[in-house]
């Protein structure tokens, strides 16, 4: 089988583009290789991707979290819509239902529009995807301060697992000695 084919098809099938620039003051500016980013879409158009971005930012609004973090969510939805006809259908129909002006609306109006479709398969799929992908990205780790995997760094035993100072220490009889 020609392994290059899917890649060629992928490029040919690209229909939309999601772009952005990480703001210089963002903590993300420190971890991204370059501030300008672009994500190719294969199932979604540029306009659909932009509306979906507004949906994700309304489901999980973090004002200071860069669009780059939400782009992981849009990319994941696009990948699933490319793979799965049903996802493609409910996504496209759901976005049509929200209307072209959705992303230009203020937050109260966007919340009201999503409240109306809260029990739809489209909304529930977008909500789950947003939660699954947004908080699992390295961009989110940096933003929320989550340090993640620690085995490769010797754990947290010498790196702050007990550095809380705003409450009294626990007496030794109710805790235990440090192992080293």
């Amino acid at each position, binding site marked *: 089988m020609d392994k290059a084919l899917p890649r060629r098809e992928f490029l040919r099938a690209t229909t939309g583009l999601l772009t952005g620039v990480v703001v210089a003051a963002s903590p993300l500016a420190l971890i991204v290789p370059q501030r300008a980013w672009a994500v190719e879409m294969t199932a979604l158009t540029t306009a659909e991707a932009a509306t979906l971005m507004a949906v994700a930012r*309304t489901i999980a609004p973090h004002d200071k979290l860069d669009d780059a973090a939400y782009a992981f969510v849009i990319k994941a939805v696009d990948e699933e819509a490319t793979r799965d006809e049903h996802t493609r259908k409910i996504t496209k129909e759901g976005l049509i239902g929200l209307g072209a002006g959705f992303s230009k609306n203020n937050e109260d109006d966007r919340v009201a529009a999503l409240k109306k479709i809260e029990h739809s398969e489209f909304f529930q799929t977008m909500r789950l995807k947003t939660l699954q992908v947004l908080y699992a990205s390295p961009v989110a780790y940096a933003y*929320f301060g989550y340090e993640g995997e620690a*085995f490769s760094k010797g*754990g*947290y035993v010498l790196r702050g*697992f007990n550095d809380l100072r705003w409450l009294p220490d*626990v007496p030794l009889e*109710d*805790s235990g000695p440090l192992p080293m």
Partner: protein
Amino acid sequence: MVLCRCENNAWFQKDVPIFDFKDESVVIVIGSGAGGGTLAHELTRRGIKVVLLEAGKRQSLETFSQVPGEAFTQLTWLDARTQSGTWGVARDFPTLPVWHCKTVGGTTVHWTASCPRLQAWELHAKTTYGGMAGSSLIDWPISHEELEKYYVIAERRMGVTRRNDMPGLPASNNFKVMYAGAKKVGYKQVHTGHLAINSRSYDGRGFCIQQGLCVQGCKIGAKWSTLYTEIPDAEGTGNLDLRTESTATRIEHGPNGRVTGVIYRDNRGQEQRQKARIVCVAGNALETARLLLLSDSPRFPQGLANSSGQVGRNYCHQITGFVWGIFDKPVYSWRGATLAGVIEDEAIHDPRRGFAGGYRMELVTLDLPTLPLVGLPYGWGRDFSSIMENYRNLAGMFINGEDIPRADNRITLDEKVKDRFGLPVAHVHVDEHPNDLAMRRHAQGQMSKIYEAIGAKRVVIGPIPPATHNVGTARMSADPRDGVTNGWGQTHDIANLFISDGSVLTTPGSANPTLTIVALALRQGEYIAQKMKAGSF
């Protein structure tokens, strides 16, 4: 060749045996977790040949993923289950009623290692609580004194902290918050818990370096798991034939009604038949009940060992639920052993609180990707995201209380949904008892007080996650009409068929179940070996 362990904890490469499919002298153990893995070690070290069937793959400290979603997929039993009932899990996690492992070592790979003992009165739940409407309570058929003897052995084997000469774990940030709040509201029994996690090097394994990701598989092996203790010990005896990716589908019996072997699908999906002298089932409470029900025959039309009709019934899962405190200063709760903290003052029976039985409050936290999926109530928008914004400042606790057995809270076969072998999957039905609801409300109230006492900005009551403490579906009973096994885990109906996991717990009590499962497996191993020597079976 596999890496085995010998008695002085040295590791060595050794050829392990492959027993013949027709060898009728072997004992088959199904499942390699706390019950099955421990039992396999107990039998093999006494010279008994064991075929250990494990549905999952074998991982190791090297292969454990440290990426939360990836680790979940690597370790979790993800084959379909269906569910119904009034419990919150049916609404919030419709496709995942329970969360346990499918891997060598079973659920001891992802467990958080909490090892409290059941108390004497918890073994007499029916007598202590009285006749409770809507319950199927019975008392245990074994005494607390008997169980205690094996708790002592299990705690030494597993290296439980604050027992014997294993010190407690040091206090983490998350525990400092719990401790300060608990002391403010007057609790006395607050400490870093009895955990099967090395606070110093022990059993040839290193000490806990407070990595945090306990449920992702302990990369340093400080947490006891049969994967790297009991199973390589059993392999070291030369008597263990471990067959991975091997799923038992039927237990067979002969004309005399005694079991003769097990049909299973091997790692290539092919059907195999292994003969045996004894079969021990330890597949976690759902799969154990399912396998017995799948093994029905003209002689046992309701399923194996089910003349009482009790197989799959009395399913208990313990009262659980998250409570989060949000503070205005950082906690960094993800740093450190996940469950290293407990408040034990409410693990008592005091009907003045408005419910029977007791509960523990245990330290808990979740990694960032898992928190919004499992730990927070359904939500989206500003309120939801404001909790996530406070991830650094979040402290967490978990309820672990006794739930009340009910005849209709049960595992059945779902004839509409089939697994990849065409067999009906397990269906779980749970309607919570009013006692369960009252206990959870009380616990949530006390935990809120604890966080508010030290200035929490907000307390968030989280959902009930998929059940991890699955017990009771083949319970021990004095009267064969009330349960599936006697006090040795030997089925009432079939002398050479044993149940060796949490399914045998007569009632759940308020203690996390693994220590009790291990203690009972140690005791059962001794019993089976004695009986075999005397020529039984």
